[in-house]
């Protein structure tokens, strides 16, 4: 039985189940794919969290679960009692691949005298001066402030922002673009109180 509804499975979410019968494989009578995902997810997460730091573990767990779902959809696992060992195999293979990538990275670090900290520093964006940003942000209209905050701080989609503000999606885009352009121009000028 499968409802086709995506249900939360802890911090992980099984991808939406396709309802077209041609794309679906129903290898197990007792449990549907979503329930299997829900059961396996904590084990995969535990496997990942034992080996990786939080962000990487979440990424790993998603990849592993996706590979398990792929196997289910393609009918590569026919028996429910095989699924546990199959999933563990997926996790181990994925871990080996990542370990190899890690070893390769370590070799490159040593070869070229680069450190993890060097990479972090290279990736770190230069922050905008906060006093200036506060000064400039306050000069936007309420709607523009809301679009900028929703976009960059809340990671909201344009459709959500449009709905919240009762404007169209293209309008959200226009407001964001105009606000970004205005903020950038403002940030290049002296702070308001001393601009005299």
């Amino acid at each position, binding site marked *: 039985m499968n409802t086709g509804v995506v249900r939360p499975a802890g911090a992980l979410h099984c991808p939406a189940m396709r309802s077209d019968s041609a794309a679906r494989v129903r290898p197990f009578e007792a449990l549907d794919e979503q329930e299997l995902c829900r059961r396996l997810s904590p084990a995969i997460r535990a496997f990942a969290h034992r080996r990786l730091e939080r962000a990487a573990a979440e990424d790993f767990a998603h990849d592993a679960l996706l590979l398990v779902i792929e196997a289910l959809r393609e009918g590569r696992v026919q028996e429910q009692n095989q699924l546990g060992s199959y999933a563990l195999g997926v996790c181990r293979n994925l871990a080996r691949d990542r370990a190899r990538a890690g070893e390769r990275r370590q070799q490159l670090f040593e070869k070229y005298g680069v450190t993890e900290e060097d990479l972090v520093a290279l990736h770190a964006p230069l922050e905008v001066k906060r*006093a200036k*940003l506060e000064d400039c942000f306050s000069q936007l209209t309420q709607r523009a402030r809301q679009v900028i*905050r929703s976009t960059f701080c809340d990671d909201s989609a344009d459709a959500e922002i449009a709905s919240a503000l009762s404007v169209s999606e293209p309008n959200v885009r*226009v407001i964001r*673009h*105009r606000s970004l*352009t205005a903020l950038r121009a403002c*940030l290049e000028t002296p702070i308001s109180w001393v601009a*005299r």
Partner: protein
Amino acid sequence: MILEPTETNPLTRLDDYLRKRDTEAEAAAYEDELFARAVAGDAPELGFHAGFEKSLRAMNEAGTLDLWLTAKDVERVMKSGARVKTIVVDPSAPEPVDASDDFDILITRVPLDLTGVRRLDVDVRTPEGMLLKTMPEALFDPADKAIYGCCEAELARTAAAVPSRTEFWATGDDGQRRLLATIHL
């Protein structure tokens, strides 16, 4: 109101790319061009966008992104763990702001009767009247009977160091705009 689309500039083009507003083919072509420009040091929008987003998120988390807060917002800032200095600036008897001591955030409570006010705009001027900035649609809750200015230390010290005139313009239900209060500091 429907606004006309903005013309493409590097920053807004980057925004469209990040939000998948383009086709895969357009994105692929853009990536070729973007990486070439980045290598040439000719893609300043990349650094701006990343830095802007990082600072914006940090300030939003700290509760200092908005310069005007309600009393409820102030409570949240007070509980944030930052060193918060609070002062009251009464428009009828303003005292000079002392921003010399150690703090992270300055909260300035300005008592105002906001009954019937639908919109509040704040202008900052030089003592001679030259407009320095307009802050449209300041956030407020009439029930607070005050508005709260919230500045991180650097902005607070910069603003406190120079004489200024702050005007609070209220627009009521009748659509009339009137000067609610002026603070000379």
